[in-house]
């Protein structure tokens, strides 16, 4: 009985990922990189805090 369950689960888990997810991760990474650069620039400009 649980073989059915595992099969159904693995079928989805092993599927090729739709690009929307890998695209999203790339976008998130990009956005973060930009924020990091802006933050660095800002903290260089002001030495307090």
């Amino acid at each position, binding site marked *: *009985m649980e073989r059915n*369950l595992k099969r*159904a689960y693995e079928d*989805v*888990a092993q599927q090729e990922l739709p690009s*929307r*997810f*890998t695209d999203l991760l790339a976008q998130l990474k990009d956005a973060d990189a930009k924020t990091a650069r802006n933050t660095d620039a800002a903290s260089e400009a002001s030495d307090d805090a």
Partner: protein
Amino acid sequence: MTPDPRDELVEHLGSMRAFAMSLTRNSALADDMVQDALVKAWSNIDRFEKGTNMRAWLFTILRNTYYSHHRKRKREVEDIDDELAGQLAQKPDHDGRLQMRDFNTAFDQLNDEQREALVLVGAGGFSYEEAAETCGVAVGTIKSRVNRARSRLTELMEMDEDEPIEATDGVTVGVVATSRSAA
């Protein structure tokens, strides 16, 4: 330089989709849910304790996303299905058997808590303790949900074998009453 946990996220996407599917039973909703969870996980990555189980952490986010948002959408989709199911239950097919032999159909009859407990422990490779933590309940609760899910599935899938060729009204009514109470 320590590895960035965010780089690990992509490895878990497949299982996240599988878990999401078991909750929503609808691939479009499941993918939307995974997307939301992914954004949450990314922006809250500093809350993740390195060295702990990332899959469990991600699944926790997924469940929270489901229960707070996507469950309502699923209900909208389900209301239509329930009506159809009700009609089917009242009209057994030619040899008097009800149409519940399919595993997926039986699985659909379980409630959310039972499905998630069974999937985590039975397919996701979680221990009872990990599943309990992910679901925010006691280990005993998870165990009883898993047991209930298993016995319910067995019941639903064996039903057509034990049934007489011609379903009597009593049997039909009994089954319909049982399946309604599981919702």
